[in-house]
Structure formats: C-alpha cells, structure tokens
C-alpha cells in the first residue's frame, strides 16, 4: 500500500532529489512540469508519484522550453508551480525564465548542476551555471537563486524558494549540484505547523479597478489569477501597469525594467541568507556555497586546530549577491579564499565586494569536489 | 410549376419587411471594402470622404434595401459597421 500525505515529522533518510520533491510538496507546490535529465530526473519521478496524492499535477512535457512555459501558465492559473532540470535543459528554459521575470510569475526552477558546457558530464557535479542563473536570459531583470549544500537544505530551501517567489512575484532558482541531489542522508522534517508558507498577495480592489502590474510600496504588484473575474492581460512585451503593450514608450520601458530589478535589490535584506562560522576573529575567510562549503567547513576547523584563525562564509543566497556581507567580512579579514567547481564565477563577485582584500581562488573541474585538505592548504598558504 | 405568374401577390401591399438601421463607425474603418463587396443587396458603396485613417469608409446607398442579414457586421475586420432592426410597428409582419 502506498502511503500518502506529507511526510510525518521526524528523521527520514532521503536523497537530495527526493528531499527537494518533498520540500516542494510541503511548500505548497501543486504543479510540476519537466523533462527527464540527469541528475534531476529523480525529482520528476518522485513527484509523478506524489503529486497526484495531493491532487496536484505532474506532467512530462515535450522539452524544457514547454516545461517552463507550462509552469508559467499553471502559476497564472493559481497554482504554485515548479520545474527541475540540469544544464542543457536550463539553457533551453532561459527564454521563458525571462518571460516569467517580465510577467512577474511566481515559480521555482530547480537546476541540478553537472559538468558542462553542452552535454558535458551528466553524472558529475559542477557549479558552472551560477552566472547563467543570473544572466541567462536576455535583457535586464532580477531573479533569486539559492544554493543548498545538504539534503536537509534541498528540503528546506525548496520551501524557501516558493516563499520567496510568491512574495516577490519572481522566478526563484534552486541551484543544487549532482552531489547534494544524489546524496542520501538524514533529513529532519519539522511538523507541518512549523513550516512557514507564504502565498502571493491577492488584489484588494474590484476587477474594474485592478491593474495587474501596479506595484505596492514594496514594488511588488498584487496578483490576480485567471478565472477569478479580473480579466486582465499579460504580455512579454514591454507593458504598462494595465498589462497593455507599450512597445514605443522609452518612459514605460525604463520604469518597468528598473522596477523589475529594484523590487529585488531594495528587499535584499529580507531575501539574503548566509551562514557564518568563526568569522569574528578570522584572518582568512573562506567564501563557499553548495557541496563545496561542506569541505570548506572541515578545512576551517582543521586550520583552527593548527592555530590558524580561519572562518567560513557560506552563501545560501547566491542571487541577489550578498555584497555588503562579503564586504564586511573582507574588511575584517586579511585574506579571502574562494573554492568553486568552475573556472571562477562567484569569485568575481567576491573580488568586487572584497575591494583591497586579496582573494585567492581554487578551481576544480570534473572528478570529485575539493577535499578539506586542498582547501586547508589554500588557507595555510594565504595566512 | 409551369404556369406563368401574371398577378401580384394579394398581400403585396401589406407585406412589410423589418426596417434596418445601419451604423458605420467611420473612423474605425480601414477601407478594406469587404462589407461593400459582399453585401447581397448592394446597400453600401465607397464614400468620397476621407476618414481619420485616410481611407474612404462605406456609405449607405439605400437603407431600405437592407434585409439585415448582418454579413457586413460579421465580416468587418474592424468592428466598424453593424446593423440593427428598427423597433417596428405592429403591422410590419412579413
């Protein structure tokens, strides 16, 4: 007999992908559209079984382009919607991620990063998509991207991703990697009552007075859904507050695009999440995210044993980039160390924020992620 | 039936066709001419005047010929023409 309903509170032994799927359900997701791709496939597989138990929709589309489009459609129809993919599919989704940003569609995109470029290394981890997450679609816009470094976080950050996307009407990305996705470990599921769920804010005005893209003070417009009688229009074209195309107006263009970016930047403090370990007196601060952060933590501990004042800044929110936090850490530390499973992507942001403080970078491609030893060596060399 | 018809119908004077009321929103017309060409009773023709969009909107030649089939309303791409049936007196029954 198949068990249904949300997982009971307490400890569970899950893989990252399954934890992510369960997180989605716990976070209120009731629509999943996707396309099989390693190493994200298990999310789809698990949801194909679990979604119906909650009356939710699972559908496998003909490709990632369609998946992303369907997610936007479902979101406009009033459901919390998500898709999950990996590099190649993530690339295909970019155009419609742009559409989601333009039409301010709450939705979650899970990208389980693998070795790129192109088909690359489907079964090995990577962190090569983090810049694409920010800049992937054409034009200026803002999104939110989170980076889980444990199976536990694959669960909790998925919920968080939905909350953020609903709060700010913005596509939110969960940038996992092959290891956190396929790794099995203990996950503690909190009681449903303790799980915080945020839903998009509904219009308070009558349909006749409703403008779908008229922002409130937080720069985020309230959102009506199809079939609620508001009869509104949305388009990927530059549009005014009524949602009507204004393709010739520079004024409307700058007003719209700036707001799309500012509704995130002005709310940074509410959005951004980091974890600091032993940073107070740290001479060397390691800045890391995802699976790499776990190696970094043991490296830092080993350094402290050997008397080196090392600390760790783990980025949970990649975008918007926690610039001020990094700057503060950099000001107090003598050096910063950044290990990444790419040729150097987030390190550029760190350098920008660190200003005068020297930043050392340790790149790792293919094979396994950085070992604690490798990161420890880097810390030692930079004391 | 083969025989030739020589007498007009007895009711011919009584027969009243419903009266049409044709409305043309001139400035919404783009002058495609569909309504004029396909009017089965040739009620419309191109006018000489030039509207806000710089085209000749249709004008009514003979409203009494209109039998309110509504094809002009249905075929107009610009929602610029429509026909109503004039609220008619009791005796107008065909």
């Amino acid at each position, binding site marked *: 007999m198949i068990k249904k309903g949300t997982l009971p509170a307490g400890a569970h032994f899950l893989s990252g992908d399954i934890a992510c799927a369960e997180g989605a359900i716990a976070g209120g997701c009731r629509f999943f559209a996707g396309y099989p791709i390693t190493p994200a496939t298990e999310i789809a597989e698990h949801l194909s079984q679990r979604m119906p138990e909650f009356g939710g929709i699972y559908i496998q589309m003909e490709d990632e382009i369609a998946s992303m489009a369907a997610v936007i459609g479902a979101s406009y129809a009033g459901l919390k919607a998500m898709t999950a993919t990996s590099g190649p599919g993530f690339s295909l989704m970019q155009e419609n991620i742009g559409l989601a940003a333009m039409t301010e569609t709450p939705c979650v995109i899970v990208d389980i990063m693998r070795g790129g470029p192109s088909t690359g290394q489907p079964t090995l981890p990577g962190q090569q998509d983090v810049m694409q997450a920010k800049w992937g679609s054409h034009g200026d816009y803002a999104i939110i991207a989170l980076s889980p470094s444990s199976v536990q976080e694959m669960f909790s950050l998925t919920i968080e991703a939905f909350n953020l996307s609903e709060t700010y009407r913005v596509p939110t990305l969960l940038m996992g990697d092959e290891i956190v996705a396929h790794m099995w470990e203990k996950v503690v599921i909190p009681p449903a009552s303790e799980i915080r769920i945020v839903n998009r804010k509904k219009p308070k005005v009558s349909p006749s007075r409703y403008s779908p893209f008229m922002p409130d003070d937080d720069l985020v417009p309230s959102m009506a859904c199809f079939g609620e009688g508001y009869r509104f229009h949305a388009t990927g074209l530059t549009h005014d507050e009524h949602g009507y195309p204004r393709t010739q107006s520079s004024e409307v263009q700058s007003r719209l695009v700036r707001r799309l970016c500012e509704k995130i930047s002005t709310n940074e403090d509410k959005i951004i999440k980091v974890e600091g370990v032993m940073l107070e007196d740290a001479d060397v601060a390691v800045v890391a995210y995802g699976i790499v952060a776990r190696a970094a933590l043991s490296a830092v501990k080993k350094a402290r044993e050997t008397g080196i004042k090392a600390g760790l800044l783990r980025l949970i929110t990649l975008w918007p980039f926690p610039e001020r936090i990094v700057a503060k850490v950099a000001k107090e530390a003598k050096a910063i160390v950044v290990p990444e499973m790419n040729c150097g992507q987030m390190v550029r942001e760190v350098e920008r924020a660190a200003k005068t403080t020297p930043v050392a970078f340790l790149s790792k491609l293919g094979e396994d992620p950085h070992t604690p030893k490798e990161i420890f060596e880097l810390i030692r060399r930079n004391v | 039936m083969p*025989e*030739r*018809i020589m*007498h007009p*119908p007895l009711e011919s004077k009584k027969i009243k066709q419903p009266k049409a009321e044709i409305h043309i929103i001139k400035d919404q017309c783009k002058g495609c001419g569909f309504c004029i060409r396909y009017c089965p009773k040739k009620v419309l023709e191109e006018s000489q005047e030039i509207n806000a969009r710089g085209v000749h909107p249709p004008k009514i030649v003979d409203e009494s010929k209109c039998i309110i089939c509504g094809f002009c309303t249905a075929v107009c791409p610009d929602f610029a023409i429509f026909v109503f049936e004039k609220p008619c007196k009791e005796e107008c029954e065909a």
Partner: protein
Amino acid sequence: MAKKKELEPKCEEIRIGVYVCHCGLNIAGSVDCEETAKFAATLPHVVLARDNRYTCSDQGQEQIKNDIKEQKLNRIVVASCSPRLHEPTFRKACEEAGVNKYLFEMANIREQCSWVHLHDRKAATEKAKDLVKMAVAKAALLQPAEEIEVPIIRKALIIGGGVAGIQAALDLADTGYKVYLVEKEPSIGGMMARIDKTFPTMDCSICILAPKMSDVGHHPNIELLTQSEVTEVKGYIGNFHVKILKKPRYVTKDCSACGECTKVCPIIAPNEFDVGLAIRHAIYTPFAQAVPSTYTIDMNLCLNKEGIIVCDKCIKACERQAINFEMKTETVELEVGTIIVATGADVFDPSTLPQYGYGKYPNVITSLEFERLINAGGPSGGHLIRPSDMQIPKRVAFIQCVGSRSDRNGRLYCSNVCCMNTIKDSLLIKEHWPETEIYVFYVDIRAYGKGFEDLYKRARKEGVIFIRGLPAEIIEDRKTHNLWLVGENTLLKEMYKINTDMAILSIGLEPRKDSEIIQRLLTLSRTQDGFFMEAHPKLRPVDAATGGIFFAGCAEAPKDIKDSVTQASAAAARAGILMAKGKVTVEAITPISYFEKCKLCGLCTKVCPYNAITLNKELKRVEIIEAACGGCGTCAAECSFGALTQNHFTDEQIIAQIDAVTEHDADKKIVAFCCNWCAYAGADFAGVSRMQYPPNVRIIRTMCSGRVATKFVERAFARGAAAVLVAGCHPGDCHYINANYHTQKRVERLWKKMEQSGLDKNRLQLLWASAAEGERFASKILEMQAIVDKVKPEEIGKAKESFEKALEGS
C-alpha cells in the same frame, strides 16, 4: 436468360396454307375474297387455300389447326387485317397446332387494301392478290425460331407525383413491388393538391388527396425522390437502367416542419403553388400538407447562392439544426423493370389571347387562380375577391374553351375537364354568395360523365346563366376595373354586352413543355396534339409502344381526377402483370451472323442503337447480345458483305417480297418499305379512317426503316418498279432510338447515285409519318401516283440497267 434451343433447319417439303378473311364485309365489301383464295391456291408451295368470314373467330382458328394436322401444313398465311392487330392471335393458334409461330405470315388486305380502296373492287382485288403473293413468297422462306427469355427486375419507376403517379405508386407498392416515385417539385400532389373541390361530388380536393400523399410518404415499398428529374434511361423492357438527377433540398430529414425558418427568411417571392397570389420565402414548403413535409431552400432566391453563407437567419432559427448548405446535387442510379409515365399536363397560358386582356386587366383571372382564391387554405382564406380592390364581386363571368377547341386560339382538342370544373366553380360561388350573378359563356357544355348532368342541372336551377357564344373581347372600365364582355349569343343570334366585376378564364390543358425530353429518354411517340401515344387506342390504352412502359393521367390525354386514378390503377396492373411474370420473351427478330463472310469492319457495332453488337478481335467475330438487341435490323442493312441478317426479316425474305411485287406490271407499282411503329401504323390508321388513296402501292413491313438496305431499293428499281417509298418515324421519334438516321443517310446516298446515273430521284421518296399521320401517308401515295404516271418506259429501262448489279445472288 433462357438458352436458345438449337433448331435443325426443316428440310422437309414446304406446305403452305392460305386463309383469306372476309372480315364480314370489311374486306369482302371491296375485295373478291374467293378469287383471291383461288389465286393463292396457284402459288408455289401452297397446298391449301380457303376463304372464310372471320378467320380470327374460334371456328376460323379451329379450321387452321385442323388443316395443320390433316394437311400437314408447316407454313400458314392469313390475309386479313393488320398484323399489328391479330398476328398474336394467329401465331398462338399455330403454336397450339404445333407449328412454330415464326412460320406464320400475314397479308394486310383490310387496313391497307379494302378500307382504302372502297370503290375500286377490281384494283383492290388485284392488290389483295399481290399482297397474298408477297406473303406466300416470304412464308416459303420463313424459319422457325425460339424466343429467348429475359428476367424482369421487380421494381417500378413512376415519373410524376400527381394523383395519377400517387395512385399507381400505392397500387404497385401495396402489391409488394418496390416503387421509385420521381417528382420534379418539392412536394407530390400535383394539380389536384391545388384544386379546391372536385366535381361532381364536391369533395374537398386536398382532404381526400392528403391521406394518399402521406401514405406514399410512409410506405415501406415506396422511395420518394422529390426535386428530381430523369436524365437517362438505358436498357429494355424488364431491365431499365435509369439515371436521376436529385437536386439538393438544403434541409435534412431532421426538419420538423415547425416553420421558424420561414419566419426569419428575409427573401420574399410569389408562391408558385398559389399561382403567385400568395408569397413564400426562399426557405419554404409549398403548402401545408406537402409530402415530404421537409422544408426546402430555393437556391435561386437564397442569399447564399454563391456558396458563401451570407445570411444565416434560418440556420440560427432551426432548433433541429436541419439546415445544411453543403448539400449537393446527386445522381441516383436505379435498376427497374417497368416505368409508368405520369407526368401530367400544363395549363394553357391565356396571356397569348389579347382579346381577353389576361395579365392586363387585374380582374381577369384563370380558373386555376380561382381555385386558389376560393380555397380556404389559399391566399384570400377562401374569399373570392377581385385583385383590383379586394372586394367580393357581385357579377362573375366564366369564359369556356380558353385555349381549347380552336386552332386559332390555342389547341384543337377539347380539354375535357373545363366544362364541369366551371359548373362546379359556379356552384361554389352560389354556395358562399348566393346573390352573385354568374354568367357562363360556352361553345358546348359537355357533361357526359357519371353525375355530371345532375350537377349541370343544379347549376341552372341555382340561376347560373349559360350563354352560348364566347365573348369576342373583354373591355375594362379604367376607373372601376369592371369588365365589359362583348360577343354574340349564337342561340338567340343577337349581340350581347355584359358588364361584370370579374372574369374567370376556363383554361384548357396542354402537353407539358418538357414532354419532348421524356419522349426522347423513353423513345415514345406522341399524337398530333402532343400527348403521349398509347400502343393501341382501344386494346392497349395504357401501354406505350415501347415494352415495359405505361401511361397514367393527363400525360396521355386531358382527363379528370377519376379517369386519372382509373388509368393509374390500370397502368399499375399492367406493370404488375409483367413483374409478376418475372420474365419477358424477346421476339426472335435479332440478327444472325455468318462469320465466314464477316470482314470485321465493325460498321454494325457502330450503327447499333443498343450497343448490342461487339467486335471480338481474338475470336475474329462479332458477338450479339440478344437481350439488349431492340430488333431494328439496322446492322443487317448496314452490312455490305451479307455477313449479318435479321431473323424473320432476312434479306432473302424481303427480296422474295420485292420480287413478288415486281413480277407483273412493276412499272405501274410503288414498292413501299414501312416501319412497323410509325409508317406502317400510319398506313393502318389511314385504313381505319377510310382515307382513300391510289391502289398501286405495295407495302413491305420492316420493324424499322433502318432495316431497309440500299440493295432492296436498288433491286426494286432493277426489277422495273416505277417508284419506291421508304417510310419511317419522324427523326427523334424513332422507336429504336436513332436507327432512322441511318435510313436517311442511305436514301440520300441512293439519291446521289440516281442523279449520277441520270435518273429522276423523285422516283425514290422518303417519308416521315407517325402512327397518327394516316393523312400524311395517304397524300404521299397520291403525290407519288403522279410520279408513277409520268415515268416513261425508257426511264424504267435506264434504272434497270444502272441497278442490274442488285439482281445478282438471286
């Protein structure tokens, strides 16, 4: 099809018996029958010759049978009336006595001799002898034959859905045969549906017709095809292949006849059913009781005629969604065994008679328009009102014989129904408005039928004024639109000038304008007045000359409802008989082929009107489909190698007849070749009508003038005949579709030849004469007699030389 039995040629001695009939005094009155019989006895192969009063009587027939037994006769010749009348009788007698019926021959010494030479006993007797001699000569060469049997399809086609067609359809369907009823109009019912009351009983016409109409609509054995026309008829008795063009109704069977569509249809037109006195819409049903009740769309009027739905008012109004503008014209193909022609008649158009001012004066109407006006369901709700002011007239005039009984003003014949119809109408007026003054202007009142006279008397008693003498003209008072009728009362020998409020023209019936089409499709013939001609006016009054085809109603002649229904039942019975039999025998007059002579030129296959001959290239021979063969013999006439001849009309037999004629006094004689259906029948008709013409003509009967080979004509001249006549049906009326076109070609070829060899081509005459044109035949003979009188011996000699080749092979 029954297999043809092989008959070994009878090589035993030929023993001919000749019987010369007195037919009371019909023949004996102007022909010396004894002498003729004596003469017959002298002819070769004749072992016995008798004359008796009535050969066709039972004694006469018994005599023949006994003689056959006792005298071992194996050929019989009867000289009496036309074979078209009694050949079947005598053939039967022969068969009963064991002589194959194809060994019987007849000499027509009544219709074509005694009756047409009443006052010249000597010449008539000479002619009778010649005719007997010809018959004997042919008889000697007769061969026995077996008739093949063709199965009959047990389905009937009825063309025309008037009361006649309806009655015939119901009778046949009730008998259990499948019936296809084809009607041009959207509804069956025809003329009767439009009439208010019927005479003499005064029943409500539609009330008694409607039940029959709906019976047709619901009958499991009847398939009703309305808005349909016959476009092609192929085949032969028992096996007709018919093509029918079925026009789309644009309304499906789902129609509940609620009439909502009509209410919204913006198109208005005069309703033909009411002769335009009421209006209808583009989507309509002609009248309330129409069958089928399904509405129909008149595409000539509908705004959607160009294939684009411009107006969709009816579609929207139709709850049943029964309107379908995608319907297309379809061709229905049927296989039927019998066909009944019930196409009805048209009414005379009085606007061609200016003196009555119909169409000019609003208050001059036709009797048909009157029927609609007086009809409760009609445009005026049964109120007789005059169109000019919608007032009920106080004085009404009926004018009779409008279009009838006058060659100047319409048709020569009496339309049969108008008198009684007017009497009925006058009584209807009296019934509603007793005060009305009614005048009936007539030529003769014909109240010949059951209960008619009573009705006539009643009308007189009710005060209807009958005035003998039609008005010379009607003059209208411009202001009042009243009418002055001016004419002579031929009883009182005085002029009258009568003022009325309204005049009703009692219009006659005439053949339908489309009769010609039906005639062509079914290869029928028509009488001079244009109605279809029956096979025999007395004995086969509902049969067409073409086998398997029958007539019902006014298509054959003007008649009232009772007669139409009677004739319809008769036609149904006749068709039923054929279909009950299930098979029909084809006369053994089909071609025979002598393969060894055939040069495979294929000419025969080209001239055959029935495509019954095909060329088999492998087997190097022509193949003959006897069931399809109509028996015209054109193929035999066309074959110049003698590879084809026609059973029972073989070259030898015909040549024997020619030789018999030309043996003595050829230079005084006319050799005439007449086709069985028109010319020969016409000659018979001349006899029946006792038309007198010169006695020097000798008629040789062929089934079709197409059988007349050039060599026959040439031989006649070669043997010194003074003149030759080739006579057949009018072009287009040919009983064998188009066989007589080949007749014409051949005669023209001969004329050329005669001119080239310096002969007077007038000695060869070509005549088109229908079975009704006895007159035409007689006058042709008179005309030719003049030629015969003028022709000089040297000319005869010249002809003999130039045609002597034709003598070879005898």
